[in-house]
């Protein structure tokens, strides 16, 4: 019931905004998103956290009975946590857009609200096709937000974003339909129930699992994004309006990692065990390579965008470590990244509204002019770098720890596909991250004051609302909840980690009895094959 409300209320709000007067647009959006947040909070109260691995708060409505398709919802702790993140970011995005969006507000807020419904749908779906549909439908509002409200290169960015993700997800659909077809051949009836399909998928042969995994990754890796299909992201992030970047980093990228967690890991365990090293390799390349790219960026927003590629590499790495700690770290990382990177995009947007540039060459020492902003910028950078005590550290550390432990000898042989070297190389990514983020902060926030030429005369010409030099109360109100989240999850992540334990063990049960040694030294050709296969599929 509450999950339905979380999908329907944003849609209803969007419709109200579209049909209402222009002046009421942002007020309606704020109200709608606050109600959603309230309902998400209620859902969290009603959720039985003691039984966090079970699907709860569910319900279903048939849609295509002869194809076995239902609108079926339900959440476990992981899905609920991500829904809470979505619901938390939504009012902040609306609040953060008040001064940035001054024309065509009805279109903007309507689509911003409409975007929330499919995002919640993805996390709450228990029907595979419903999941896919929501996954796909997030594209439309985002496409429109970027192409109408983005900066100069917005058309190209929007189309690239749409085509990349759409292509990938159609291939993912082919893989998912294949699983459903296998299930229908076994049971005689079509069903899209995720739990049913999961059992069928696990029983497929290694070859089939590998192809299905490749198809699924084609869709999900684009969304995450994993190297080498990450190239849409910097453009889309840079061109999107502030709230667009926030929701991209905060939630949309998580749709990819969540899908990997929910589908790839439990559906095709044999293939994951076989190719985990290849996936890990791609993640590590992403971590290091994107980190190095960040280092040479002059555009602050682009830098943070590339840092997302690097950070989500850790997230995937922790996941394919196939152990509790890695997966816990990975899932926590999704939330942490949403908080800290989302907040960084807010900060950059606030700076941009004042200076109309994001170039590090034109900006410097802004702490002298905007001390409050400088505090938040520094704070969220630290959270992003992984300063102990803040949230980024916990998850990054756990991802790496999981990767280390993955190669250790255990009761039934080698316990995971990765090992020391994976963690060691990925660890250099943390150092690179510290370099580029601190370099950026050092340049823009501290040092001698530098403002773009002619600053102060441009505000009115751009048609933006006139803003005071430092942050307003509204802007502080946007950043404070995120900062609190960063501190709480940094100091006391235990309850969240504990809640994730049961669902993760549920997922990893598919790997019981898999001895990862079998996949390693048995045949040298294997090593070649596993690098070649995914590379083929993702080179497009």
């Amino acid at each position, binding site marked *: 019931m509450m999950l339905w409300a979380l999908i329907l209320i944003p849609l209803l709000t969007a419709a109200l905004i579209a049909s209402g007067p222009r002046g009421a647009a942002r007020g309606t959006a704020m109200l709608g998103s606050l109600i959603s947040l309230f309902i998400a909070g209620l859902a969290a109260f009603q959720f039985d956290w003691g039984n966090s691995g079970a699907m709860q708060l569910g319900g279903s409505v048939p849609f295509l009975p*002869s194809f076995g398709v239902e609108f079926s919802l339900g959440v476990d702790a992981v899905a609920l946590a991500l829904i809470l993140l979505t619901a938390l970011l939504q009012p902040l995005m609306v609040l953060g857009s008040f001064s940035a969006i001054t024309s065509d507000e009805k279109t903007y807020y309507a689509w911003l609200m409409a975007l929330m419904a499919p995002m919640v749908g993805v996390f709450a779906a228990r029907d595979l096709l419903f999941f896919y549909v929501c996954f*796909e439908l997030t594209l439309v509002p985002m496409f429109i937000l970027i*192409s109408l409200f983005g900066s100069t290169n917005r058309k190209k960015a929007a*189309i690239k974003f749409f085509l990349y993700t759409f*292509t990938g997800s*159609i291939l993912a659909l082919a893989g998912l339909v294949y699983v459903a077809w296998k299930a229908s051949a076994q049971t005689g009836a079509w069903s899209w129930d995720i739990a049913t399909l999961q059992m069928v998928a696990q029983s497929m042969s290694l070859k089939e699992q590998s192809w299905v995994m490749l198809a699924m990754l084609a869709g999900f890796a684009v969304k995450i994004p994993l190297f080498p299909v990450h190239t849409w992201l910097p453009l889309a992030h840079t061109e999107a309006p502030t709230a667009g970047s926030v929701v991209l980093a905060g939630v949309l990228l998580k749709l990819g990692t969540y899908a990997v967690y929910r589908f790839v890991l439990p559906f095709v365990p044999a293939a994951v065990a076989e190719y985990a090293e290849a996936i890990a390799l791609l993640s590590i390349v992403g971590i290091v390579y994107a980190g190095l790219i960040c280092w040479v960026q002059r555009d602050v927003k682009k830098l943070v965008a590339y840092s997302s590629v690097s950070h989500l590499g850790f997230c995937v790495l922790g996941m394919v470590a196939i152990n509790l700690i890695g997966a816990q770290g990975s899932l926590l990382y999704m939330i942490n990244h949403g908080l800290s990177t989302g907040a960084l995009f807010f900060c950059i947007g606030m700076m941009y509204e004042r200076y109309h540039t994001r170039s590090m060459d034109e900006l410097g020492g802004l702490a002298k002019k905007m001390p409050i902003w400088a505090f938040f910028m520094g704070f969220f950078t630290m959270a992003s770098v992984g300063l102990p005590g803040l949230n980024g550290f916990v998850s990054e550390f756990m991802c790496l720890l999981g990767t280390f432990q993955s190669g250790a000898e255990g009761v039934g042989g080698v316990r995971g596909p990765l090992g020391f070297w994976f963690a060691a190389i990925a660890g250099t990514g943390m150092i690179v991250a510290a370099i580029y983020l601190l370099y950026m902060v050092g340049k823009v926030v501290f040092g001698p004051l530098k403002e773009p030429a002619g600053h102060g005369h441009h505000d009115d010409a751009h048609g933006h609302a006139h803003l005071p030099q430092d942050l307003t109360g509204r802007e502080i109100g946007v950043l404070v909840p995120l900062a609190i989240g960063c501190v709480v999850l940094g100091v006391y992540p235990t309850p969240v980690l504990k809640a994730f334990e049961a669902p993760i063990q549920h997922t990893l049960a598919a790997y019981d009895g898999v001895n990862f040694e079998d996949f390693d030294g048995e045949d040298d050709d294997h090593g070649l094959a596993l690098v070649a296969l995914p590379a083929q599929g993702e080179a497009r």
Partner: protein
Amino acid sequence: MMSLLAAMSAGPDVPPMIAKLSIIVPEIVMFVGTCVVLMLGLSKTSTIRRASVGAAGLALIIAGIAAATGPQGVADSLLPHVMPYAKVLIAAVGFILLLLLTGTVDREVEAEADAGKPFDVLRANRAEFYAFFMFSLTGLMLCASADDLIWLFLALELTSLPTYVMVSISTARSRSQEAGVKYFFLGAFSAAMLLMGFTFIYGATGYTQLFGYHSIASVIGAQGSLGPIATLGFVMAIVGLCFKIAAVPMHFYTPDVYQGAAAGVSAMLAFVPKTAGFLGLMLLTSAVGWGLGGGYGLPSELRLLLWVVAALTMTFGNVLALMQRSVKRILAYSSIAHSGYMLVGIIAGPGAWGAGAPGNGLGAVLFYLMSYGVMNVGAFAVVASLEKQSGGEAEDVDDLRGLCKTHPLLGWIMVISSVTMLGLPFAIGFLGKFYLFTAGLRAGEVALIVVMGLNSAIAAFYYLRLAGAPLLEHRDEHEASLVVTAFNSRKLAGLISAVGVLALLPFADRLATLSDHAASYGASSEAAQASASQAEHVDARSVTDH
């Protein structure tokens, strides 16, 4: 009366010719309607002339009702239930197309007549135009009833021949003449090819009858394989049919003809010959039998042929559509691509009898034809409704810019139509593709499904342009403004299409079940008899109902 005719057909002493009359009641209605349209359209009185369109619409409605309430199945056919579905679909889409075609011909003549000059019958084209339209639809319905090669050929040609004339007279421009001639010659070539193929099939089997105890199907079934001559015949017939459905290698005419003809006629070309071609393909492939290739597949030669045609058709269509600037050419190439998708359903075949909707490829084709018929009209209706001040249709993509602001109705029709054809979930176009996906996978055509998936992604690019130009872009101030046509029924056609694709969604499951039932393949004569008795049962029910 129709039920009476149907009941008669079931009796033992009725001659076969009379028995067949009961299944072509809709066609008879259409024919009578055509004659009325022809006569009314030549009247000297303006009001009566104008009533000819109404008469055509009425005939379509009656034919549709007749098809829905008439016999639901035919004995001795391997596709016993296809008729009512196809004919109702044809009548419904035909009705929307009729709305779209208003005002295509005779504008000057009518304007002169309104100004007080005497009506010049020789210069007027109205009667012929609508009569040919009706003839073409009659032919299309006959395709659905066909049980014989000769019948099928005549029906296909009755569908095609009027369209050649309609293309030529649809506008006064020389481009239409050129398009008409091009269309005619290539059409004649393909018809010759088709006929040649039919000859070989007849030569190899000794029958022209498609289904039944003494028929092509029975001979091939008894032989257990096709044999070289019959294979040649089927290959030539399929290639000939590729012209009708605008598939590679017979697709070359499509963009030129669509661009040359008036938008309403292009919309018709995208649906009518395509449906005829697919009905023909369904009948031919069913006559070969779905058991010959092992499982429920086609013989390997035909499967390979159709596979290559399908893959090339969707790829050519989509890739070439990317390079176009004219909306009509984009839609022409997209029409090619959609044919490619539908061929997947033909390759997949009907699957096991009564196994349910998701595996029935032929059902998927029928479902897709339905969704394509509805969603495609919308896009053409927008083009047909916009004119440049300098005269002529506004057909460049840039002409659509900002349409949602300047002409919200047309703009949103374009957006909904493009997004549906793009296959965005849960649009009806997505469900059509999804149905083809499940059917294709059931038949084990994984590679083809991947090709189709990639093609859907390529297609996204140009559909996004079609949807994005009206919604997201702004019209430059200095550009000449567009004139919206005075013919409101064209806008109505677009509106019906746009509302239709949304309104059909709640009934999607019902429609999928219906198309599965319509395409159920009775592999044995028992099944055919069962279906015949079921038909009687249905008829008896309808008799008591009335």
